[in-house]
C-alpha cells in the first residue's frame, strides 16, 4: 500500500469526495537528461530542480518533458491483474479520454494545428496518471500509472473527444526482441531477471527484485525471441510475480513475498459503506487437480558433442566452411585441433578416409559458436594436394535434459464435491520434484474451494496495491487485481479481485533454518 496521510484516508471514506487527477503526457517525447532532481540541503525551494517520482529514486521516465493535460480529461481507466494461480509477468493497461473541443488532440492529417498536432498520432508517448482527492482546498493525488501509449489515439471528430491507450513498461519490455542469445546456469530467478533488464537498458534504480527462491539449473533466451515469454516462464516457475507498480518501479516478488511486512498485516478494513457491488466468479477458477511437468536442463561435464566422418573435399589453397548442429544448447566448445585429445580432425588423400594422412596440411581458420550450432572454417595450406575431411570430433559442455518430472496432486474432498477441475503447468525451469510438489500443493490450497475468490467494487482507495491484505466481511483477503475507473458517470471506483491466499513457507536448503517454521514440502 502506498503511504498516505490520515487526512487523505478520511477524505476517501467521506460520503462527499472531491476527486482530483493529474494526467501528464510527453507528447513530443523531449528528453532532458540535464534535469536535476531536488535534494534537501542542496536544492533551493522555488529553484529549477524537480521533485522525482514518489518512490524516491529518480526514474528515467522523470526526464521526459511532460504536458499537463489534466484539464482536458473526461475519464480515466487503468487496470492490473496478477497471473493467478501461477504468477508470472503482468502488464498494466490504461486509457484516458480527453475533451477535444478546442482541437488540441486533432492531428495534422485531420486538419489540426495545435501545439501537439504533429505528435498526437505517434505511439510510444510516455504518460503519467496520478489521482486522489481535494481536501482543505488542496489537490492531493498519488501515483496511479506510468506507461507508454501503444497505439494511435482514438479520435472522434463529431463527438469532439480523443482517447489514448497504453501499457506500463512491462508491456513495453515483453514485446522487445532478443538480439543475442544468452544462457544462464545455476542462477536464481532474480539474477537472471537483473541480467535481462540490464540487456534491455533498465538501470538498477528502475527495479526492485526479491531474492529468488528457485534456482534454475539452466535457462536460455535465444536471439529473435521476445523477452516477455522468457521472463514470464522464469517467474512462473518461481510462483512469483513480475509487474510494475503505481510509481513506475518494476518489481519481482518471490512466492513468499506476501509473508513479510507490510503484507502480513491488514492494510484496510473495508466496510459495506464503501462497497458498491460484490460478486463471486464462476467455477472456472476452481482447481482441484494439479499436474506439473518439467524437463529441466543442466550443464554437463566436458564430453563429445559432435562425432562425424564428413568426407568433404578441401581443395589445395582453399577453405571449407562446415556448419554443425547440436542436439542440446552448448555452453562451452573446445575448438578442434589437428592433434587434440578430445576435439580433433583428420584429413586424408581419399574420400573414404584411406590413403595418405594429410592432417598436417590443414588448420582451423576460424570457429564461431552459437547456442546449438558451430561454424568451422578449415584451411588447406598445401599449394598442390587436395584432401578430404575424414574425421571431426568436437567436445563441449552441453545443457542436457537431466530429469523428467511429472507430479499429479489432487484435493479429494474438492473432487468429490465439484468433480475434477484439472490444471497443468509445463515449465522447464521447475528443477526438482520437491519444488513441483510444493507448487502443486500451494495451488490446491488456494483454489480447491470456490469461496476463496471474490470480486468487490468499492469507492476507490487509491493507495491500495497488489498483495495488500484487506479485511472484508470478517475475512482476510489479498488483492490480486485492481481495475480503476474515474469519470463523472461512474464516479471514482475500483473493482478489486480478491483471493484468500494461504502462504506456506516450504523448506529450502540454503534458505530455511532447521527448527524454523518452514514446512517440508509434501
Amino acid at each position, binding site marked *: 500500500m502506498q503511504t498516505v496521510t490520515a487526512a487523505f484516508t478520511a477524505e476517501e471514506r467521506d460520503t462527499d469526495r472531491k476527486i482530483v487527477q493529474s494526467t501528464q503526457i510527453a507528447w513530443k517525447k523531449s528528453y532532458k537528461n540535464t534535469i536535476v532532481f531536488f535534494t534537501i540541503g542542496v536544492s533551493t525551494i522555488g529553484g529549477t530542480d524537480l521533485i522525482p517520482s514518489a518512490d524516491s529514486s529518480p526514474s528515467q521516465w522523470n526526464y521526459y518533458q511532460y504536458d499537463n493535460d489534466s484539464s482536458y480529461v473526461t475519464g480515466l481507466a487503468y487496470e492490473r491483474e496478477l497471473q493467478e494461480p501461477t504468477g508470472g509477468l503482468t502488464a498494466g493497461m490504461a486509457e484516458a479520454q480527453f475533451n477535444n473541443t478546442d482541437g488540441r488532440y486533432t492531428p495534422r492529417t485531420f486538419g489540426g494545428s495545435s501545439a501537439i498536432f504533429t505528435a498526437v498520432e505517434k505511439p510510444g508517448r510516455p504518460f503519467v496518471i496520478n489521482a486522489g482527492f481535494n481536501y482543505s482546498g488542496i489537490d492531493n493525488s498519488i501515483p496511479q500509472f506510468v506507461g507508454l501509449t501503444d497505439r494511435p489515439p482514438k479520435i472522434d471528430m463529431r463527438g469532439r473527444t480523443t482517447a489514448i491507450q497504453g501499457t506500463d513498461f512491462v508491456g513495453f519490455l515483453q514485446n522487445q526482441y532478443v538480439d543475442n542469445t544468452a544462457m544462464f546456469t545455476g542462477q536464481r530467478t532474480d539474477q537472471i531477471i537483473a541480467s535481462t533488464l540490464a540487456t534491455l537498458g533498465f538501470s538498477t534504480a528502475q527495479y526492485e527484485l526479491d531474492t529468488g527462491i528457485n534456482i534454475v539449473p539452466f535457462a536460455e533466451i535465444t536471439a529473435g525471441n521476445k523477452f516477455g515469454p522468457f521472463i514470464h516462464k522464469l517467474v512462473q516457475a518461481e510462483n512469483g510475480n513480475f509487474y510494475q507498480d503505481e510509481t513506475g518501479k518494476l518489481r519481482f516478488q518471490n512466492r513468499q513475498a506476501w509473508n513479510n511486512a507490510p503484507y502480513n498485516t491488514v492494510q484496510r478494513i473495508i466496510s*459495506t459503506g464503501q462497497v458498491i457491488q460484490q460478486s463471486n466468479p464462476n467455477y472456472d477458477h476452481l482447481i482441484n487437480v494439479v499436474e506439473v511437468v518439467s524437463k529441466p536442463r543442466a550443464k554437463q561435464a566436458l564430453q563429445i558433442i559432435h562425432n562425424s566422418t564428413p568426407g568433404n573435399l578441401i581443395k589445395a589453397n582453399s577453405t571449407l566452411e562446415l556448419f554443425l548442429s547440436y542436439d542440446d544448447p552448448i555452453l562451452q566448445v573446445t575448438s578442434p585441433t589437428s592433434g587434440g585429445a578430445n576435439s580433433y580432425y583428420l584429413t586424408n588423400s581419399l574420400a573414404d578416409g584411406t590413403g595418405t594422412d594429410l592432417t598436417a596440411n590443414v588448420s582451423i581458420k576460424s570457429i564461431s559458436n552459437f547456442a546449438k550450432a558451430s561454424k568451422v572454417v578449415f584451411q588447406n595450406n598445401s599449394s598442390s594436394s587436395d584432401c578430404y575431411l575424414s574425421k571431426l570430433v568436437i567436445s563441449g559442455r552441453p545443457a542436457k535434459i537431466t530429469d523428467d518430472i511429472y507430479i499429479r496432486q489432487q484435493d479429494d474432498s474438492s473432487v468429490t464435491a465439484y468433480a475434477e477441475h484439472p490444471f497443468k503447468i509445463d515449465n522447464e525451469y521447475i528443477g526438482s520434484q520437491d519444488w513441483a510438489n510444493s507448487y502443486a500443493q500451494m495451488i490446491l490450497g488456494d483454489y480447491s474451494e470456490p469461496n476463496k475468490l471474490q470480486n468487490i467494487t468499492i469507492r476507490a482507495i487509491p493507495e491500495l496495491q497488489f498483495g495488500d491484505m484487506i479485511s472484508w466481511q470478517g475475512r482476510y483477503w489479498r488483492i490480486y487485481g485492481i481495475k480503476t475507473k474515474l*469519470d463523472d458517470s461512474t*464516479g471514482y471506483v475500483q473493482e478489486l479481485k480478491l483471493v484468500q491466499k494461504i502462504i506456506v513457507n516450504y523448506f529450502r536448503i540454503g534458505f530455511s533454518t532447521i527448527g524454523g517454521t518452514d514446512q517440508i514440502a509434501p
Partner: protein
Amino acid sequence: MSFVLSGTTIKAPQSISETNNTQVSQIRTLGGNITRDYFGSNKRQWIMSYKTINSTDFTTINTIYQTYLTTGTTVSWVISETNYTVSSTLVHIDLAQRSFSTLGTDYLSEFTLTLTEA
C-alpha cells in the same frame, strides 16, 4: 453598479436566473448510504432575460457575442450591483434568439443572454 461583459457595460436585464452546475456521480453502497464523488468545481450559469430593448443596447451585447464566436475565447463577466455581485469570472456566451414585439421604427426586441462559467 453595473453589468460588465468583456470590459463593456451592458444594459441591466429585466430578470436574472443564476444556476449551479456540478459534475457529480451519486452511488449507493451495499451499506445503504448514498455517497457522492464530485469532479471539478461548481460552475454557475446566468440566464438573463431582456425585453423591449432598443437596437443600440442589443448591438452592444451582440458585438461582444460575435467577437466571442470569432475568437473562441471566453470573456470576463462582472456584476457589481448593491446587493448582488459577481467577481470577475470567465464565461462562455450564448445569444440564441432575438424576437421583436414592437416593430415600427424602433424594433424593440426581446432576447435571452446566457453566460456559462468556463
